[in-house]
């Protein structure tokens, strides 16, 4: 299908769903998001609470499918000149949005409407990721998470291991080997293979992921993941796959099904998985969390954030943008931030939110939610750990995961697989750079 055909379809969908209700004179604001299930309900809660708090604006929260589907819907709507105001875009879409010229930068929007928000209160990994080089925030931070480590306490007991998460990759390997001997089907596994095991591991050990300071100083055109660190990391995982202590569970978050089923001993995935695991494990097995394991001999960096932010699209009317600014102001209040982080398990985005959650005793009741906060606070923000900004990042991630599979299956050596991933990614990155030369 081509983009015009798609635009027609989306335009039709917009016309069908987006007709303003005539009973209210309030200005309508379209907010497209990708949150499903419980998270989707929480998004509706925020919109409803904001709508109830004033009468001038109505925020319509509309679920548009997965993150890529939501982004595609926004692109099609924008190209079809159908106004849409706020769209939730995942972190891999950041560079695409920044380059597009289709967005109204959030710092500008707030300044234009005289709404003061203390952006310096944002925790630095979040602020760094979504700000331009000049330190201006381009999109509204919304849901951020970072990978952490989970472990299955019952399996640990069975294998005679202490009730403590492994702090290093050496420990992961030796513990996973013991778990395997004890008959655990999935001694170690990880969801989001590229995000956790490649992107985050590079940042966490202060290793560069791409040139131009991971794309922050200009469009990146070369990946750096085939260096000594990347190869060492992949060689260990390839060994794990071969010896049976690492169970590869598929791309994206597919592997989470293994942990949810209680099969894994050690598992790494997003901190946003806590809620799901808590629900799935209730009455079945006990688990704990810990910071990501470290690889000995490499410096300290920090884990990077995933999740999404809210982008404001150009092409709307002035009064609508006034409403968007008011909605963001409402979102940014510490009270609402603390509520959102508390009910969803996403990272608190500002320092005052973290303090408020601490003061309210939230972390005493939900100790696992603190793991990610502690991990990020313990890290060091360096040029390599502030985040990764790549054009066509989704394709790059795909190229990496494709080769990870070739490495784990033994079809290629770690070095060969990473070299191939870099070659394909560079081709993708150069295409993007050529667009915006």
């Amino acid at each position, binding site marked *: 299908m081509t983009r015009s055909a798609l635009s027609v379809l989306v335009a039709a969908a917009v016309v069908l769903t987006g007709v303003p209700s005539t009973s209210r004179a309030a200005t309508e604001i379209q907010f497209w998001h990708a949150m499903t299930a419980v998270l989707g309900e929480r998004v509706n809660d925020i919109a409803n609470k904001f709508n109830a708090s004033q009468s001038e604006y109505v925020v319509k929260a509309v679920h548009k499918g997965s993150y890529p589907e939501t982004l595609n819907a926004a692109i099609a709507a924008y190209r079809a000149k159908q106004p849409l105001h706020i769209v939730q875009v995942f972190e891999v879409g950041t560079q695409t949005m920044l380059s597009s010229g289709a967005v109204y930068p959030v710092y500008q929007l707030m300044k234009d409407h005289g709404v003061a928000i203390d952006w310096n209160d944002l925790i630095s990994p979040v602020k760094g990721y979504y700000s331009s080089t000049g330190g201006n925030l381009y999109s509204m931070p919304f849901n951020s998470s970072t990978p952490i480590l989970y472990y299955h306490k019952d399996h640990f007991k069975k294998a005679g291991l202490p009730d403590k998460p492994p702090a290093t990759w050496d420990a992961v390997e030796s513990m996973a080997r013991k778990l395997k001997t004890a008959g655990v089907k999935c001694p170690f596994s990880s969801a989001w293979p590229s995000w956790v095991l490649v992107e985050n591991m590079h940042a966490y050990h202060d290793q560069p992921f791409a040139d131009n300071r991971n794309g922050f100083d200009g469009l990146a055109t070369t990946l750096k993941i085939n260096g000594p660190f990347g190869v060492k990391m992949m060689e260990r995982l390839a060994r794990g796959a071969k010896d049976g202590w690492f169970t590869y569970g598929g791309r994206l978050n597919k592997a989470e099904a293994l942990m949810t089923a209680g099969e894994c001993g050690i598992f790494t995935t997003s901190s946003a998985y806590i809620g799901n695991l808590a629900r799935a494990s209730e009455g079945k097995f006990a688990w704990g969390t810990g910071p990501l394991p470290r690889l000995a001999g490499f410096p300290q960096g920090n884990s990077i954030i995933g999740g999404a932010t809210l982008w404001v699209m150009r092409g709307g009317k002035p009064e609508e943008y006034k409403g968007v600014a008011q909605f963001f102001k409402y979102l940014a209040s510490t009270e609402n931030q603390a509520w959102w982080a508390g009910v969803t398990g996403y990272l608190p985005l500002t320092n005052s939110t973290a303090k408020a959650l601490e003061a309210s005793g939230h972390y005493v009741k939900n100790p696992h939610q603190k793991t990610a906060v502690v991990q990020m606070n313990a890290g060091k923000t360096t040029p390599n750990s502030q985040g990764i900004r790549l054009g066509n990042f989704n394709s790059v991630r795909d190229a990496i995961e494709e080769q990870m599979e070739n490495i784990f*299956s033994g079809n290629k050596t770690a070095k060969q697989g990473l070299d191939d991933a870099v070659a394909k990614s560079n081709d993708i990155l150069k295409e993007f750079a050529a667009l915006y030369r």
Partner: protein
Amino acid sequence: MSRAVFRNPWLPYALVAPQIAITIVFFFWPAFDSLRLSLYRASPFGDRLIFIGGGNFTRLLGDPAYFRSVATSLGFSLVVTVAGLAVALLLASLANARIRGLAVYRTLLLWPYGIAPAVAGVIWLFVFHPSFGVLPYLLSFVTDYQFNWFLKGWVALTLIVIAAVWKQFGYNLAFYLAGLQAIPGSVLEAASVDGAGPVRRFFAITFPLLSPVTFFLFTLNMTFAFFETFGLIHAVTQGGPGDATSILVYRAWKDGFDGLQLGYSAAQSVILMLLVIALTAVQFRYAEKKVTY
């Protein structure tokens, strides 16, 4: 054949107009737009559109992964088609026999066709899942071999082939059953009288008489395997492991909608379109000669 005559000369055109309009809007327009877009480097939001001539095509043809994808698609489609038709013909012959409860069997056999490819994918995903699937569990009693299609390309491909064949099975069966019932009983009886056994009767009479149906189904199944298995692959393997199940249509979708490389994706769909046109033309040109209507 009798000729239908319309009194109003415009009426026939008016009657076909809706169909033509649909073809133009949903086929010709997108197809020409892809053709145009394939010559450009296009940004996702449409703010940049740089003419690069055959740039997207040279990028594609310089990528060995693309040729792997072409080979995978052709091999996959051929296996799905041949296996699918063989199984359907075999079971149709059996279902055509005079046995009790035939109506029930036929209905049951037709069922899989009513299932969407993505749903079929999910069903097979549960059957095959390396951790909680039924089949790997049963196989673990027989062999120590790990049928993990998250990592083993041939297992993933086999899984997709089986699911695709199963999905298309009901459709093929329906046509073969209809074809079998159209074969006059007297011809088969005459052959029996001449001393031909069931196997001989099948290959000397039934199979040649079914050739129009086989030809029709062959073309249709090839197209199905080329395009409509998308939902299946998307639900189960996402083109992996590595690029083992990355058939052309999946690649084009992934680069376009997941990766937002629109011009590059358009170039892939243009090649795909040419390939399918060529394939169909070859089938009509050579295969049709062997068909007896």
